[in-house]
């Protein structure tokens, strides 16, 4: 990871921007060759790496280029509709849109990351794109300072205590609202186990230190151990992909409305079979984290989620849903200048200790091994230094784009309090805005990054 040229060496010898260009073989590479054939001059600050298709270009490469000291990255390929492999560039357009939204949100200066469509005949465009990118980088200066270093204390989100969204909508909730659900749940579980419809029920039980912990009951007589109250925060669907639960199928799993959305993702991605579980949907008025209503509950308008084999309690939609306070926080961050935003996020990521609790609680982080475990090559450094932490948190967010249903478990469990919920939500909003897609609704719909529309927005592409 250490660069041969030290930072001071680079500035001493007169800094020149370094632009890494990832190009597709059939269009842009040929276009660059055409510029050569026509002897059109452009800046030598660019380094071209050839790929069969922009569809082969992974955001990992872009992040790695920056980590290695590149000042800017350009990705260029065929115009939509002309891809030699049909759809590579159309898939890439979606992926890069989300990646760019993420990098903008994190505060990377927008001019450092560019995308373009340059065809084999557009030698002139290639020259113009390279020259304009290099000039923009020259103005911005070297990227070494922002990437991987802290530069001072971060701007604050005014602390969590000054939430713009009062918790009034949920102040009507009473303990009784849970009692009824709890007793009905116990009855139902007893019945399911007694009749052998499920081999076990995975639900919440009273914890010794924490108010609620996951418990597994295998006998109808144990049904009274099940509880349901405002402390039942965990998303139990995470256990559906655990090898230790395979022998308990069919498994009855207690799900709140938010948890149920995870089931959609697990079905979409073939991680569970529909017949291997029974979704016991409990009517949830809301849950609390650290004594306060969870942010996600403030805007929740459903009591029961999309997948429910048994419904316990009322399934009437809630009339009290308000706005999500994270949206205000996201807007606040987006008002800051890129350097401030970057500073904020670098400070956040510098706290990460790579405990991977965020990954462990997430129902959709089921890859075994995970990309973070891969070492040939090692895209994500395992060390908890800032470069490694940025890489880890960035890629986890990217892997969840279009899949995360916002259960916020990752944020709850993070021992150092990183605002993962803001990043996940920001990308969720981007996917909804650009592709009109919301995860956690319909298991038969293809995930947004595995598909495309011929007229997907590409306003960020040169």
């Amino acid at each position, binding site marked *: 990871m250490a*660069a041969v*040229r030290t930072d001071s060496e680079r500035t001493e010898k007169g800094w*020149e921007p*370094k632009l*890494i260009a990832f190009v597709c*073989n059939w269009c842009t590479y*040929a276009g*660059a*060759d055409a*510029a*050569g*054939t026509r*002897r059109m*001059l*452009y*800046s*030598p*600050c660019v*380094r*071209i*790496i*050839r*790929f*069969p*298709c922009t*569809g*082969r*270009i*992974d955001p990992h*490469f872009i992040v*790695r*280029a920056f980590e*290695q*000291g*590149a000042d800017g990255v350009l990705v260029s390929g065929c115009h939509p509709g002309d891809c*030699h*492999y*049909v*759809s*590579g560039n159309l*898939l890439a357009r979606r*992926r890069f849109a989300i990646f760019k939204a993420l990098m903008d949100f994190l505060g990377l200066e927008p001019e450092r990351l560019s995308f373009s469509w340059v065809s084999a005949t557009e030698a002139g465009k290639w020259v113009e794109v390279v020259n304009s990118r290099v000039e923009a980088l020259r103005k911005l200066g070297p990227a070494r300072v922002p990437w991987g270093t802290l530069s001072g204390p971060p701007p604050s989100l005014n602390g969590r205590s000054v939430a713009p969204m009062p918790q009034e909508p949920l102040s009507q909730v009473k303990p009784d609202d849970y009692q009824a659900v709890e007793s009905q749940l116990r009855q139902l579980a007893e019945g399911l186990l007694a009749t052998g419809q499920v081999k076990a029920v995975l639900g919440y039980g009273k914890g010794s230190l924490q108010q609620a912990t996951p418990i597994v009951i295998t006998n109808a007589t144990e049904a009274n151990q099940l509880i349901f109250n405002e402390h039942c925060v965990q998303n139990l669907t995470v256990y559906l992909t655990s090898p230790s639960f395979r022998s308990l199928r069919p498994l009855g799993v207690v799900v709140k409305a938010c948890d149920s959305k995870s089931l959609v993702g697990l079905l979409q*991605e073939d*991680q569970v079979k529909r017949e291997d579980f029974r979704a016991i949907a409990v009517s949830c008025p809301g849950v609390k984290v650290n004594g306060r209503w969870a942010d996600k509950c403030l805007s929740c308008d459903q009591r029961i989620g999309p997948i429910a084999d048994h419904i316990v309690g009322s399934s009437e939609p809630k009339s009290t849903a308000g706005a999500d306070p994270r949206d205000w926080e996201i807007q606040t961050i987006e008002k800051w200048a890129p350097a401030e935003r970057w500073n904020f996020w670098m400070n956040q990521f510098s706290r990460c200790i790579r405990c991977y609790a965020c990954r462990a609680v997430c129902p959709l982080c*089921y*890859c*075994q*091994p*995970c*990309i973070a*475990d*891969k070492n*040939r*090559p090692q*895209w994500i450094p395992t060390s908890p230094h800032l470069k490694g932490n940025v890489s880890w948190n960035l890629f986890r967010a990217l*892997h969840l784009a279009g899949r995360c249903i916002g259960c916020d478990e990752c944020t709850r469990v993070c021992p150092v309090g990183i605002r993962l919920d803001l990043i996940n939500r920001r990308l969720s909003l981007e996917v909804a805005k650009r592709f009109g897609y919301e995860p956690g609704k319909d298991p038969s719909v*293809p995930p947004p*990054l*595995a*598909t495309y529309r011929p007229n997907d927005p590409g306003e960020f592409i040169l």
Partner: protein
Amino acid sequence: MARIGVFVCHCGENIARTVRVKELAQKAAQIPGVVHSEDYIYMCSEPGQKKVRDAIQQKKLTGVVVAACSPQLHELTFRKACQEAGLNPYLCEMANIREQCSWVHTDREKATQKAYEHLRYIVEKVRRNRPLRPIPVPITPRVLVIGGGIAGIQAALDIADGGVPVTLVERQPSIGGNMARLSETFPTLDCAQCILTPKMVSVRQHPNIELLTYSEVEDVKGFVGNFQVTIKKKPRYVDEDLCTGCGDCAPACPSAVPNEFDRNLSWRKAIYIPFPQAVPPVYTLDPQACLNGPKLFPLACERCYQACGPKAINFNDRPKIIERKVGAIIVATGYELLNADYVKELGYGLYPDVMDGLEFERLLSASGPTGGEVVRPSDHKVPKTVVFIQCVGSRNPANGVPYCSRICCMYTAKHALLYKHKVPEGKAFIFYMDIRAGGKGYEEFIQRVMEQERITYIRGAVSKVYGLNGKLMVQGVDTLSGQRLEVAADLVVLATAMVGANSSDLVQKLRLAVDRYGFGQEAHPKLRPVETLSAGIFLAGVAQAPKDIPDTVAQASAAAGKALALVAQKTLEREPTVASVNEFTCVGCFECQKVCPYGAIERKEIRDRAGNLLKVVSTVNTGVCNGCGACVVACRNKSMDLAGFSEEQIFASLAAVTV
């Protein structure tokens, strides 16, 4: 241990003038893994290539990097040289220091530094290249043609003439398709049946063609060169070998239903032949129309059986499943006319005297329901005023299809001309938006129709057709004069839009990409119009896009040519830069399968020795994979990788160009 040879080309002065080539060669020698480094004035020349070959043999090189022009120019040249010297050609790459360096920069320092970093990246890449062999795929020397219209017929004949056996599958009882319905064809006014039937007969008689009519493709498995096709032959209830086509059964049959071949303008019996020149010339019993009911048993009526001399009728007939192995498939499923809701405003479906183009063809046809006389379906009177309306549904994104159906201008002109020939005192009006007459002789035909045949062309659209006192009032506008007008017509013919006749079942089975109008997606709109993205499956005729008969025949021959080229080889050699799955780490999310444009990813079960299912993982069909790498990016934990552009290669390249 890597033993890379680096060869830096001067290209005369083209590179050497800007890049310090000797210095480059010397620096390259320092790169870890490089054991040979030299520069030379023209690497692509014979002495240059000899240097490569000699170094491979003398220094036992495991990889070669030629720093010279663009690989798009000479990669094959140097790979061949390597192969001749005994080095796997995929262990040779080029560093582009001409088109992308010496030709576009002027600063010698910077250009040399850039060339060095680029060279270093290619060295890192080559160090991690694996020797690859082209993937041989055996080919079954037989072709399946789906669809027995003119396109399918032509393709089948061409392939059969090429010595390759063909299985031609047609779902109707006879081949001939829509062309068999036509009266005369533009611009020559050939009789359609006259030019078609000889080809149909050739198909029947050709020793290399297996003709399966009244059959449908049930399933297609496999991949290019190795398709396994399941065909269901529907029961005719008539033995094709015994039936002589004498026709004694039909008059005996008491049940009559509308005749689809005549577009429901006439009747046929339950036992019928679609048209006299049908191939095969045998009768078919339609159980839906039979008095015995769809199940036929218990038999109440046996009149056809009793009337049949050769005793060809067999009520016990059953569907037959026929399995065939083929190397290539041609989809020639043709078209239908789209008569959707929008034609209701024009009276279609409300008035029997409002009809579409194919229905009018049947009226014109000598073997049609009226023996070629143009009469109104409602009262059998001869229409004295006929209005033809073009662009009904075509070129209409809001209320129809956005594209032009290409043949309507020509056939409408033909219709008007034929009408005038049959009813000289009649009046013909054509409402048009534009006239598209791009083919050979087409413009001349239109001019003849306009000027000599005294047919009135009105530039404008029609908003409504309604009945009034036995006439059809056609309300339209003449944009050239700016006037609204109404024509009192006896008969109205609508040139409705063509859409592809691909059934969604077939599309799914072939994994064919089809647009929402039913037309198959060609691999490249200009350069690969008969291939599809599924290797080994080709398109011919209107199944691909609206077109006329000459273009259909041309495209059918083109598809045949492609299919012949494919199956003429014993094995197919495919580029080995394909994807592969690490089954140990794959978690079976199948994101890769969702993004692959070629359908090259399949599911594979992993079981333990006791047969218990452990997990289902992805696997790549290397016969179909084109090496784009979209699956690698889609794979979240990188269980997928791509030979030639592997994760490790790119990782190493990134260091090489930034450090």
